[in-house]
């Protein structure tokens, strides 16, 4: 995935200002930035959900539209963006990951059912398959959506705050699953506020503040003086917020 010089504007608000980012197969990239730094917009731009004013996105050498058609992009939404009272089961949600592989009536074939069963097994939700999606714990909900991405077989996996409201055990499970998906060749982008857990999860980290301030080894990126840049703290005592 190669995003170059993305600029996105919502009316007066400049959400992204020439942001460039490359994701590589078999690597997990942690996306760090404060609220309003453009993380969600970056996800949307990669998926082609917002049209950037400037800049391009290439995925697996093709356009985002081609990548979407080949079901290459998997997305795990933020919890706030999901209607948890919606009458679908865990199994239904994971099956939605297979829709890109099906005919237009989305009737599941044997391969689809197998992929769903296998994905549920891997996220340890087999016993919960027929629960309504809202009747899971916070961590189980996230795992259900990760299973959707696994069943889809996405080669680019985008996760928006997968660790928010998640217990330790689920966090460990999700981290392990993402490491496994990366080992199998997926390029993974994870936005997170959980900075302590980042080095254990990610191969690299990105500081976002409308543009990419820094992209490199998680330990380096997470140094206090670097974080201060992204979170707008003035550690050096300069006063330039006029």
């Amino acid at each position: 995935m190669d995003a170059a010089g993305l600029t996105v504007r919502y009316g007066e608000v400049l959400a992204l200002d020439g942001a460039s980012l490359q994701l590589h197969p078999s690597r997990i990239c942690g996306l760090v930035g404060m609220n309003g730094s453009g993380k969600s917009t970056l996800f949307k731009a990669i998926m082609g959900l917002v049209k950037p004013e400037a800049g391009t996105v290439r995925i697996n050498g093709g356009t985002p539209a081609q990548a979407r058609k080949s079901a290459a992009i998997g997305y795990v939404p933020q919890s706030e963006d999901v209607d948890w009272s919606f009458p679908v089961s865990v199994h239904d949600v994971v099956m939605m990951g297979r829709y890109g592989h099906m005919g237009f009536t989305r009737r599941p074939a044997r391969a689809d059912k197998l992929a769903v069963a296998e994905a549920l097994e891997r996220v340890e939700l087999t016993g919960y398959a027929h629960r309504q999606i809202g009747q899971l714990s916070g961590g189980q909900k996230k795992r259900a959506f990760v299973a959707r991405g696994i069943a889809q077989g996405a080669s680019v996996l985008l996760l928006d705050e997968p660790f928010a409201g998640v217990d330790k055990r689920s966090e460990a499970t999700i981290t392990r699953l993402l490491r496994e998906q990366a080992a199998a060749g997926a390029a993974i982008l994870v936005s997170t506020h959980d900075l302590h857990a980042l080095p254990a999860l990610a191969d690299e980290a990105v500081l976002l503040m409308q543009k990419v301030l820094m992209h490199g080894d998680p330990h380096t990126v997470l140094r206090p003086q670097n974080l201060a840049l992204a979170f707008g703290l003035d550690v050096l005592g300069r006063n330039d917020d006029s």
Partner: protein
Amino acid sequence: MNLLDIIIEPLGYGFMANALATAVTAAAVCAVLSCWLVLIGWSLMGDAVSHAVLPGVVLAYMFSVPFAIGALLFGFLAVGLIGAVRDTSRIKEDAAIGIVFSTLFALGLVLISVTPSETDLGHIIFGNLLGVSKAEVLQILILGALALAALLLWRRDFTLYAFDATHAHAIGLNPRLLGAALLGLLALTSVVALQAVGVILVVAMLIIPGATAHLLTDRFGRMLLIAPAISVACSVIGLYASYYLDTASGGMIVLVQGAVFALVYLFAPAQGLLGRRIFAAARRRRTLEMDARAPEGAGIGR
């Protein structure tokens, strides 16, 4: 008079048979569509589109083209105008909906007032179940069958769209197209229901069945069965009640729907306001009885 006579006697009149066919068709199609509308949060949109088709239907009558074409045109016009007002001004969506649909509805009323016609176009507003002709029944059946077939054929895509439009987009589906298709089907369905309950009450048929079913099940597939089953039953009961009580048939059907919703809202097993307490209490009693009946020492192994 026994129950069978009560049911069969009115059907001896041709107009009652036509009314029943119309009511049942409209109820079934509207109810299936309503499952998606209530889950997407498009109840107001349903209200808007079903009112806004009025001028389209009147114009279609004036130019002798099928009602469905006029309705589709004005349904999309309404949605387009609502989107334009919302996106290009500081007016919020609910206000935009209110402005657009009431203005288009008013245009329909004005058009009716200047249209000379042998059939009373006022019937479109309040519905005229008992005056539906055989030809109209046929048209309603065909339109209803088309709308129902489209909804069921693409049901999985519509459900994905309602649940997670972002994912739909990410896997190469076109959420805008799916949304537009649902709105088009909404306009078509409104035409089907016009004859039954009239423009003003169509919205009840488009919201209440889906909302009622949502309180009764956690499975979308079951909602798609429960909603039309309830809605059809309500329409039949409402129609018979209006026959014997000599009241407005459209109004009666919606009253029954509302009453059934109220019952479900109160007494549904898992979601009902009182229902969940009653069932929880019953469950507690059962476990207590089982514990009391269990022989001494049976609990040790647990």
